[in-house]
């Protein structure tokens, strides 16, 4: 009995039902659109070609949403919170593979269909069932309305529970990353791990070694302090030197730890169709390269958000590395000083000893970053 009633008493069932209904809500515009098309075709007199054209245009528009990255992102977020499924997030930086897009589109379609079905069930079948149970006579003739109402009611609840569970099972299959994407993620993690190990080794070899030598020298100086003041003096000098060198080493290693991230060699990831890029020959230290990548990334994001039309990216290495991003400003976007993002960029550029300017000029927003390239 408990097992039989379990699904109906479990709050999870109702959270999943909300997820299914969400699909129904998303399906409404489609139903509306379909209705309008049918109406305009049946009532209009455009002739066969006109009807086909309308059909083709509407179908084309309808087919876009299932394949959008944003749709996948939304479905993943909804599945995570309402279906309680553990899914890796949608990666905006990386365009999903065709296979992933197809699976997400299939999921979207199924979600809409199921949602519409459940919505209909809840909006139509359930009230009918309830009416049947509480007042069968009002619906018409026959005693059989009573049991039928009860059956419809219970069946609707179980159908909702079952479809919810099915959705939770299928979500990882249709919304999860493809095998290739999983492999790429794994490689990425491995790279991170290898880098961490390298840093651990570096700390071990440089700083650990220096501190050990310092400790040993200090111990030795203490034990011969009175008997051999010359050695003690020498040891103090050595301790000072070694300490200074270790602090510098630590600086370097911590710098690497702080600065992790992609560098300019991964620039193509940022160059979408909306960017006209003109990138010259570049050879800069990793720190500069990583900062440059972040500047380009942030500027292009800003351009896409506030600007209009394609953005232009120009990178030149003269004495300094000069990065220039321009885009036409959207009429509505009146940005005076720039937001936090620009302040953050400016601060980081300053730490590298460079300069950054950003601002509007005759309808064009321009960001120019100048990073000094120190040769070691």
């Amino acid at each position: 009995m408990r097992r039989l009633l379990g699904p109906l008493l479990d709050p999870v069932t109702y959270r999943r039902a909300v997820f299914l209904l969400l699909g129904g809500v998303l399906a409404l515009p489609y139903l509306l659109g379909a209705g309008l098309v049918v109406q305009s075709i049946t009532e209009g007199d455009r002739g066969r070609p006109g009807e086909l054209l309308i059909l083709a245009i509407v179908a084309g528009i309808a087919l876009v949403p299932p394949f959008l990255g944003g749709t996948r992102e939304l479905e993943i977020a909804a599945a995570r919170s309402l279906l309680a499924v553990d899914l890796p997030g949608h990666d905006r930086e990386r365009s999903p593979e065709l296979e992933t897009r197809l699976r997400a589109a299939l999921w979207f379609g199924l979600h809409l269909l199921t949602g519409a079905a459940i919505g209909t069930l809840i909006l139509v079948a359930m009230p009918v069932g309830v009416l049947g149970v509480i007042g069968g006579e009002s619906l018409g003739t026959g005693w059989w309305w009573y049991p039928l109402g009860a059956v419809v009611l219970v069946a609707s609840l179980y159908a909702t529970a079952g479809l919810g569970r099915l959705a939770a099972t299928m979500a990882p299959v249709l919304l999860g990353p493809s095998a290739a994407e999983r492999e790429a993620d794994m490689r990425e993690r491995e790279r991170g791990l290898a880098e961490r190990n390298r840093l651990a080794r570096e700390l071990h070899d440089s700083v650990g070694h220096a501190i050990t030598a310092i400790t040993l020298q200090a111990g030795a100086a203490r034990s011969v302090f009175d008997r051999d003041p010359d050695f003690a003096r020498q040891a103090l000098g050595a301790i000072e030197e070694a300490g200074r060198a270790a602090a510098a080493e630590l600086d370097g290693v911590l710098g690497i730890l702080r600065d992790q991230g992609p560098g300019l060699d991964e620039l193509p990831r940022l160059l979408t169709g909306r960017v006209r890029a003109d990138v010259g020959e570049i050879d800069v230290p990793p720190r500069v390269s990583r900062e440059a990548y972040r500047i380009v990334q942030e500027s292009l994001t800003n351009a896409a958000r506030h600007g209009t039309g394609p953005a232009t990216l120009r990178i030149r290495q003269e004495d300094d590395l000069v990065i220039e991003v321009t885009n036409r400003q959207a009429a509505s976007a009146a940005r005076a000083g720039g937001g936090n993002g620009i302040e953050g960029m400016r601060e980081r550029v300053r730490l590298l000893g460079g300069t950054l300017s950003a601002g509007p000029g005759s309808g064009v927003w321009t960001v120019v970053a100048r990073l000094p390239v120190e040769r070691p």
Partner: protein
Amino acid sequence: MTGVLIADDDALVRAGLRAILGAEPDLEVLGEVTDGADVVQAAIRLRPDVVLMDVRMPKLDGIQATRLLLDRFGAGAPRVLVVTTFANDEYVYEALRAGASGFLLKRARPEQIAEAVRVVAQGDSLLFPEAVRRLAASYGRPDGRVGRADLTAREAEVLTLMADGLSNAEIAARLVLGVETVKTHVGSILAKLGVRDRTQAVVLAYKTGFVSL
């Protein structure tokens, strides 16, 4: 007087160790080498009782140097005390396996460093029994090569206490025996197991499962 040879590629470490050991009246630093490759030659020339051996050296590391030393001198080889920067250095275990008698952290206090040299030279107690236990744990399944049959009941008892890290004097007190008697038992255990010192006897005892972890 215990003679010591220092093998380390870092001049600061060598100078520190030399000063610390030189301050002890019963210890004498006979010489220094900067690489494992020079250890055997220096040992032949200087005849040290103990070699303070760094693990990582440029041409030949401390583990290889320990092996060469044992190959060259056999049972009469100087005791090797491995000096290391970090406690969880796996090379330390390898060095113990290669025949080193103990290991020492470079960050140990000067008094501890001097004491470690004495302990290793005298061979009547174990340096860091805990580390030897961990080393044994890394061996995997015991191969049971040393059976109880090889040792007398008393010797088996003594070996078990050695593995617990007890010194000869402590073992004597525990078993109500004279220290000299315990020394005799230890000598006979080493002979029967065919190992050259206490550390190696305990390593073997763990390795074979004679003493369980």
